[in-house]
């Protein structure tokens, strides 16, 4: 009963999405307010139906109802309750349902908060949201129905892929999808503006917070995914330029560009057409990511199942939305009016520079991701582009951008004074130089590049602080006035500074790990010791352990500091999930400050030893901490009162959510 109700609700949501697409659009064209008014309630009702459907599937998982094929394929009665719930989206069908759930959630939010939008804009935006929803609901119903049944029902399920049985599955996909799908709102706004042939002043006010919200979630999703891969896959890497990673990184890059160009548009009504194009491109890249990951074109832990009909279907959706929106753009863009004027050296100019670099970087990553796929499709050869390509292309593109970041917020609007800004950044530059010196002379064994990287990171962080200090007038005015001015600064200024500071933190983490990492590998028997980066690791014993649905051999290590004091214990294990007979490596990680000691067990050798790999990863946690700080910056910016003009009060509720997510 519950399962079938969920199924029916999904079908009903599809029918309603079609209405949500067609009726407001017709209303908008004919100027019929009654028809335009349908969009909002339809979007909210559609969201309620998808929630019902999602809840029904979750109940089926919790109750181990193996008469549902999807539950049978991906669950097991002995699985811990947390993984029964997260297993709902740990598979193709369920993850598409989550995708649509979040899409309709954003649709409902637009409907709920858009009472003060011009009626035709509102109708068109909701209509496009409805169209996207209908396309993906049809995809689910036609090719990936999570409610397909089995009769008679098997008595035990096949269990979830063990790599996914982790708290990461509870956080990473929902965050990532909130990011991916959040950009659909920007897309809908862009297409709605193109359909109408004009951009309202409220347009930019609306698009920026949505972009910001999506960007916050996407940042969190990528950071979480990277950390998950780092501790779960057991080889100590945190980013591999894997196509699946790139698929999430691409919309992040163009979303970051969109975020910055939306500022110009909002404040100065300039760059309208460019912003529109970026909004379309960003969501297109999100769709491309969904296609690459979901179609089975790429084999990875994300490609839960491969089925050519699904790939074709998503490809059709992709072509329809990207092709359709770009054609509309080509037809209509020339009729849109251009906005404010500015000098090349100005805040606007700096943001354009930012956009140039970011979009070029996006294009680079896109080529590196798609080229091997195209070659394979055309010639059948498997080639790998991999890290060297990105290190040679992406990194040199990003370095000048990072160098320029502190200048941007200090430049005045319309016409800035580069010399003056450079002077004001003198202290930050001095600090960065000092950091380079310290790195070169005090820390042993670092190369020039590492020192330069550390200097760059310090430059970014000090630059962000300089921005705040200057705007508060520290040094120019009395201390009390400075404090008052500091507190009174607009939240968006804090947001900018925090986000740029976070970028510096991440940079520092990346540079430290890539250049200062220490790696040791040895065959160890109980009682053996191994030294790495001033720590001594003693192998105590290997002992069997039985978890709820796995068995494992736990290797116990004790580690000491250079003076020989015992600090703590590390447990690293090799697990076997019995239902799928699949082994996994559970790395043992000890955190010291922001650095980590990472221990991974290899195979046992014939003579009773075991291969142990140990990494010392200096400042590795900063990589993800920087991401969290960036999210915090975005959230602070989202709370700025300015954004509530033309989109009033209720915004606060939604903006509070990223903080919770970040806290996880």
């Amino acid at each position: 009963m519950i399962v079938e109700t969920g199924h029916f609700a999904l079908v009903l949501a599809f029918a309603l999405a079609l209405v949500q697409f067609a009726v407001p659009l017709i209303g908008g064209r004919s100027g019929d307010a009654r028809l335009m008014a349908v969009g909002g309630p339809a979007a909210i009702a559609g969201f309620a139906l998808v929630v019902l459907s999602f809840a029904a599937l979750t109940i089926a998982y919790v109750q181990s109802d193996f008469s549902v094929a999807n539950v049978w394929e991906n669950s097991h009665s002995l699985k811990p309750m947390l993984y029964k719930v997260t297993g709902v989206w740990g598979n193709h069908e369920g993850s598409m349902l989550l995708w649509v759930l979040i899409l309709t959630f954003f649709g409902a939010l637009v409907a709920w908060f858009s009472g003060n939008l011009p009626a035709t804009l509102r109708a068109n935006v909701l209509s496009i949201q409805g169209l996207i929803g209908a396309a993906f609901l049809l995809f689910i119903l036609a090719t990936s129905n999570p409610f397909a049944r089995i009769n008679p029902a098997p008595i035990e399920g096949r269990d979830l892929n063990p790599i996914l049985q982790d708290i990461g599955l509870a956080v990473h996909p929902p965050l990532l999808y909130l990011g991916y799908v959040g950009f659909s709102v920007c897309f809908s706004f862009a297409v709605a503006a193109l359909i109408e042939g004009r951009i309202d002043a409220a347009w930019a006010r609306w698009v920026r917070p949505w972009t910001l919200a999506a960007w916050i979630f996407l940042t969190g999703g990528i950071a979480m995914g990277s950390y998950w891969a780092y501790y779960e896959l057991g080889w100590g890497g945190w980013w591999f330029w894997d196509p699946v990673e790139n698929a999430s990184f691409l919309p992040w890059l163009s979303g970051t560009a969109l975020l910055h160009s939306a500022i110009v548009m909002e404040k100065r009504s300039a760059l309208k057409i460019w912003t529109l194009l970026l909004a379309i491109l960003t969501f297109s890249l999100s769709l491309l990511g969904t296609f690459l990951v979901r179609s089975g074109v790429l084999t990875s832990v994300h490609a839960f199942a491969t089925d050519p009909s699904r790939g074709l279907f998503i490809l059709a959706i992709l072509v329809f939305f990207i092709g359709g929106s770009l054609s509309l753009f080509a037809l209509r863009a020339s009729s849109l009016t251009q906005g404010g004027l500015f000098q090349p050296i100005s805040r606007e100019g700096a943001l354009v520079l930012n956009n140039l670099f970011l979009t070029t970087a996006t294009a680079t990553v896109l080529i590196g991701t798609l080229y091997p796929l195209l070659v394979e499709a055309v010639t059948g050869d498997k080639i790998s582009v991999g890290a060297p390509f990105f290190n040679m292309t992406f990194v040199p593109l990003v370095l000048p951008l990072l160098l320029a970041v502190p200048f941007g917020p200090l430049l005045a609007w319309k016409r800035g004074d580069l010399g003056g800004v450079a002077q004001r950044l003198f202290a930050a530059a001095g600090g960065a130089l000092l950091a380079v010196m310290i790195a070169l002379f005090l820390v042993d064994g670092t190369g020039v590049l590492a020192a330069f990287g550390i200097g760059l990171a310090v430059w970014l962080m000090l630059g962000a602080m300089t921005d705040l200090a200057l705007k508060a007038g520290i040094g120019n005015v009395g201390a009390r006035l400075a404090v008052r001015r500091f507190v009174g600064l607009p939240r968006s200024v804090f947001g900018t500074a925090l986000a740029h500071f976070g970028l510096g933190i991440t940079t520092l983490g990346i540079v430290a790990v890539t250049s200062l990492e220490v790696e040791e590998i040895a065959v160890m028997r109980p009682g053996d010791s191994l030294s790495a980066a001033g720590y001594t690791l003693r192998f105590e014993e290997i002992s069997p352990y039985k978890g709820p649905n796995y068995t494992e051999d736990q290797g116990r290590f004790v580690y000491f500091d250079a003076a020989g004091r015992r600090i703590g214990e590390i447990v690293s294990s090799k697990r076997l999930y019995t239902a799928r007979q699949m082994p996994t490596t559970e790395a043992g990680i000890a955190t010291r400050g922001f650095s980590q000691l990472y221990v991974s067990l290899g195979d046992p050798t014939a003579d009773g030893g075991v291969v142990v790999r140990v990494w010392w990863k200096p400042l590795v946690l900063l990589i993800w901490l920087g991401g969290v700080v960036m999210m915090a910056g975005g959230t602070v910016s989202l709370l700025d009162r300015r954004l509530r003009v033309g989109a009033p009060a209720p915004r606060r509720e939604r903006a509070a959510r990223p903080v919770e997510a970040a806290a996880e």
Partner: protein
Amino acid sequence: MLFWIVAALLTLLACLAILVPVVRARGASGLDTDHDLEVYQDQLAELDRDVGRGVIGRTEAEQARAEIGRRILRVAGPDSGTAPARSSQMGRIVATLAVLAVPLASWGIYAVTGSPNLPGQPLQARLDANPADSSIEELVARAEGHLAANPEDGRGWDVLAPIYYRMGRYNDAVVAYRSAIRLQGSSVTRELGLGEAIAANAGGTITTEAQAALERALVLEPQNPQAQFMLATAMAQEGKSAEASHAWRSMLAGLPADSPWRGAVEQSLARLGEQPAIPGPSADDVDAAALMSDKDRAQMIEDMVAGLDQRLRENPQDAEGWQRLVQSYVVLGRLEDARDALQRGLDALGRPSQPAASLETFAFERGVTLGEQAE
């Protein structure tokens, strides 16, 4: 029945979501330009704040103010506002069609994709049901629940093991037979069952583990035909045709005339004459190698390794291939080449990556490392 009522209610609500706004909406909405004016006024106010903080120069602020002013004038211009909207004949038709489309489309699609008559089957409810109504799978699950609570119940494992085997759950059968042997002691039936289950789990290959179980059965009952037969088959699988043939022949001699095993043994003997028992580095090659002189054999192995090496040069994205190559060089005692292969493999697979890391570990276990210069 309840399901249909719920479905009907949901459909009704969905239709209302369309109907209510159509009926309640005012004929005309406020002018779109109001929103624009609000935004522009706020931009002006913000400009003043920016001037106060010195984020924009005074001249530029004046220009910006003029730009915003022009926009306000454009908005307030005579023909920019949209005409008051009104409800038309066509609007009513569209709304009616939409309200009708929702039940038609949803019930139509659900009729094709749904299974309205199949009740939900939560696992616990199924296990609580009357055993007489249960399927074999449900009975097994019940027994599993019992054994999970009382893992030392040897009789339970004894009963469950052959059922697992018949259900094709060979791995569970192996575990069950092992538990039964541990708790109830060894017996011919249990050892035979274990041997069979291990072999079935290995896809029919009678592994050393399976052979050990069969041999234990033979100790208990030296003339057991099944154990004898399977052990001979194991020899055939290993390519020891002569030994297998010998074992089967002596088995035939010992079997009574009416034994059902005779047919199987004769068939196996006949098959032995025709085809090699194991695939892969084909039996012919191996036979050929056996006939060759040591020098020729070494040459053949060198050729095979060189071939592998060449193949990896052309297609380096083969993590397993690199492991085989390193292994081959180690076996041949060519450590320098092994190290070179490791280096090339790591370069090709790209560090840091999982394949590269496992290749490194693999090589390390065989005593091949890159040495100091790589760090």
